[in-house]
């Protein structure tokens, strides 16, 4: 397998990397291990050596060094903070993903990646659940849902929210708020996984089929806006589908935090005050990669008595460890990163930890259950719906 998957620019970038180390201390994985090979700088240097030694052919032999290197590629949350701190503004995140893609094609990726891919292409969700049960969350939560042929707003629920008990309240909250506002909204007739896990894991072979299905179905419904409570789904629709399909879908894609912000500005909702100290954890895929930083803060600021900013937040926010499929490839590491992040969030003295991503909510929530005197970790949509008395 040649390194043709790496663009010419990326191969240039590997040599352009200044090796200044500005990225190193910002990498949550390096922060945990302290070993150079786990740092973005270390990985770029190792890649450079491989390119020097093997020319354009990467990962052709299954030596111990290659195996260890591929492990480093998957011991990464793809949080993208390394690129933000890069002296040369290199697109390191894209480099990591392309390298994962190469290792998948060479059969060197961790088993869990293949398993996820196989599972996803069966019932079209990452949990391998029967696709008929995709809307069971509504039954469990008692949510009032709508499935129409046409609608102004399409609510894309996502796999984690649909199938994971801990997150189904987010779907209940979102539907309750959409109904409260009186929106003309709908769920998809047949919602497939957005495919984002395929994109970040490098198992991209069938991704186009997924993107085509979801985009075509939504365009047939003439939806103007797709809203999701999952930043990963939003990224798939907004960034990955146009790349895979070669065109932009005919609808806008926003996260539910952005819609809440619009509702507040337009006076469509009023949220009763919450007399508590809260702090907000920025999901990487929403804040850094999606550029949505101010909206959730404006929403929270409109009703929370005391909103405290944690350290390492906003665009440079620290990853909770849930991203990049790390939970599947190295769940112990993912848990440790969540504990570290939660410690930072707890140090604000907040009674409620709020986020806006089902994966972050889960990972932080699980870490919280391992802490004595654990704090509530809540999704923004749930907190708003609860305050409004809608759930």
């Amino acid at each position, binding site marked *: 397998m040649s390194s043709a998957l790496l663009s010419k620019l990326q191969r240039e970038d590997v*040599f352009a990397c200044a*090796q200044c180390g500005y990225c190193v201390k910002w990498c949550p994985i390096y922060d945990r291990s302290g070993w*150079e090979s786990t740092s973005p700088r270390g990985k770029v240097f*190792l890649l450079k*050596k491989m390119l*020097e030694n093997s020319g354009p052919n990467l990962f052709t032999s299954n030596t111990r060094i290659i195996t260890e290197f591929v492990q480093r590629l998957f011991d990464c949350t793809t949080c993208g903070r390394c690129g933000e701190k890069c002296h040369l*503004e290199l697109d390191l995140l894209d480099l990591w993903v392309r390298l994962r893609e190469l290792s998948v094609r060479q059969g060197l990726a961790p088993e869990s990646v293949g398993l996820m891919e196989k599972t996803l292409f069966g019932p079209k969700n990452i949990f391998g659940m029967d696709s008929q049960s995709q809307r069971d969350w509504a039954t469990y939560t008692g949510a009032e849902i709508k499935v129409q042929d046409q609608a102004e707003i399409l609510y894309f629920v996502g796999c984690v929210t649909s199938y994971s008990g801990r997150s189904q309240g987010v779907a209940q909250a979102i539907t309750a708020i959409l109904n409260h506002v009186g929106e003309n909204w709908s769920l998809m007739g047949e919602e497939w996984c957005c495919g984002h896990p395929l994109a970040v894991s490098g198992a991209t072979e069938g991704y186009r089929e997924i993107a085509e299905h979801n985009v075509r179905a939504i365009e047939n419904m003439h939806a103007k806006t797709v809203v999701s409570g999952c930043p990963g789904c939003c990224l798939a629709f907004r960034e990955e589908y146009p790349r895979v399909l070669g065109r932009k879908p005919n609808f806008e894609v926003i996260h539910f935090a952005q819609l809440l912000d619009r509702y507040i500005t337009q006076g469509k909702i009023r949220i009763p005050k919450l007399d508590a100290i809260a702090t907000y954890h920025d999901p990487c895929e929403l804040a850094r990669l999606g550029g949505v930083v101010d909206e959730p803060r404006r929403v929270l600021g409109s009703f929370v008595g005391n909103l405290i900013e944690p350290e390492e937040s906003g665009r440079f926010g620290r990853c909770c460890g849930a991203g990049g499929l790390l939970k599947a490839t190295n769940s112990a590491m993912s848990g440790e990163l969540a504990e570290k992040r939660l410690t930072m969030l707890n140090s604000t003295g907040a009674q409620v930890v709020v986020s806006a991503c089902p994966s972050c909510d889960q990972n932080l929530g699980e870490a919280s259950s391992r802490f004595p005197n654990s704090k509530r970790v809540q999704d923004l949509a749930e907190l708003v719906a609860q305050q409004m008395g809608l759930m």
Partner: protein
Amino acid sequence: MSLEKTVTDVVGTDRVSTSDLERIAYSHDLAPIPRNITGLFNNLPDIIVKPQSLEEAAGVMKLANRLRVPVTPRGSATWGYGGAVPTMGGILLDLRGLNKIVSFDEAKGLLTVQCGAVWKDILDFLEKTGWELPVYPSSAPSSTVGGFAATGGLGYGSLEYGSLVENVASATIILPTGEKTVIDPNSGWVTPPQLFGSEGTLCVFGELTLRLVPRRPSAAPFLAYFHQLSNAVEVANDLVRRTRPFSLILRAFGFVRARERALLSPEDAESGAIIFGYYAGMPDQVEESLSSFARRVADGGGILRPREEAEFEWSERFYPLRIKKLGPTVLTSDVLVPSNRLIEMVQHAWQLGCEASMDVEIENIWVSPDQVLFFPLFLSDERRTLRYLSHSAITKKLIDRAITMGGRSYGYGVWNSFHFTASEPTRRKEFAKLKTLLDPNDVLNPGKTLTAKTRFGLSLPKVLYAGFLETLWRLGEWF
């Protein structure tokens, strides 16, 4: 008993690695080594150790001294002369784990930090206090306290406050024998100026107590463009005497900026040089300095830029390597030159660049009114191996010229060790004596600074090095 097992007994299993992948990851610093000569040195450490306390670091050093195993201390490896890279394998001591702020005496302005602390973290820590750092390196976002102490200690703030060693109250060091001791300006047997800048060959810096300076009530950055380099140099030299900024930097462009297009404005693209920097002091002093700056820039034919552009340029001071994207490799050689000879040095660098068809951008930081840290960035391509090797001769040529001007190489490491005698003959003699005294078994960063020793235990003769590079330079056009 294996080396790994012996070291593990000192620091524990999870902080020792002999993995091949890890050894490669630690086998380099900023500067790519031409592949043709990598064979001369054993850059791969045999074992990497991450101590978590000074006691552990001292324990490893003591063990290495007993077993006669080379030790290479390493911070963030942001220096480009091989100081943090092994040349004979051995133990690599990764000191980044020793990164704590040990104590802060807010009344006296004394801050004690461990060697692995990153300068930018210290700057951020002090932001909430009434104190400031007098001096910090241009690589502050990643470079460590120990690394800066070991490699010269000149940087932003040196113009006003001198080098790092002048701003250190005391230092806890680990000697090559593993003994831990404290030195200060009144130490009898060895003083900080003898050890600072010793490039990790005489001691390992463990902790430093920094003398801070009171935060000034007012501060402002400044920026001006010049079409004529000579005008920019003249104005800069005048300003450092008249107004004494915290820092003053002159950036001279070859064709780089034109290729890169305007960073800030059309005038920027056309400028041959820019001057930027930072004033701090009482509000009226800062205002007076800014007025003097504006007048002098106008008199010198420069273009004064607005405050927001000055702020942007000052915030970019940690990113001089951005042009590397056009390389992809940069060749550099920091030298100290007398400020009244700077224009000659810049012209010389440009001529050399033209001869070798290398574009160049030059960063010049005034470290005193009379001395400039000259930092050229020649664009090259390490993938064209022979051509890159030929290009690398430019570093020797620059140092040679700096020495004839009364300047010197800023550091020696492996690659510039041949210039130590010509640059600083007296210091080198004293340095060699200290090395013998402090490191009788030659275990701490051996084969550097005083000599460039190969993996075979032989030092490269200067005549061979000089002849080799000069020949390559002449053959350069054929590569």
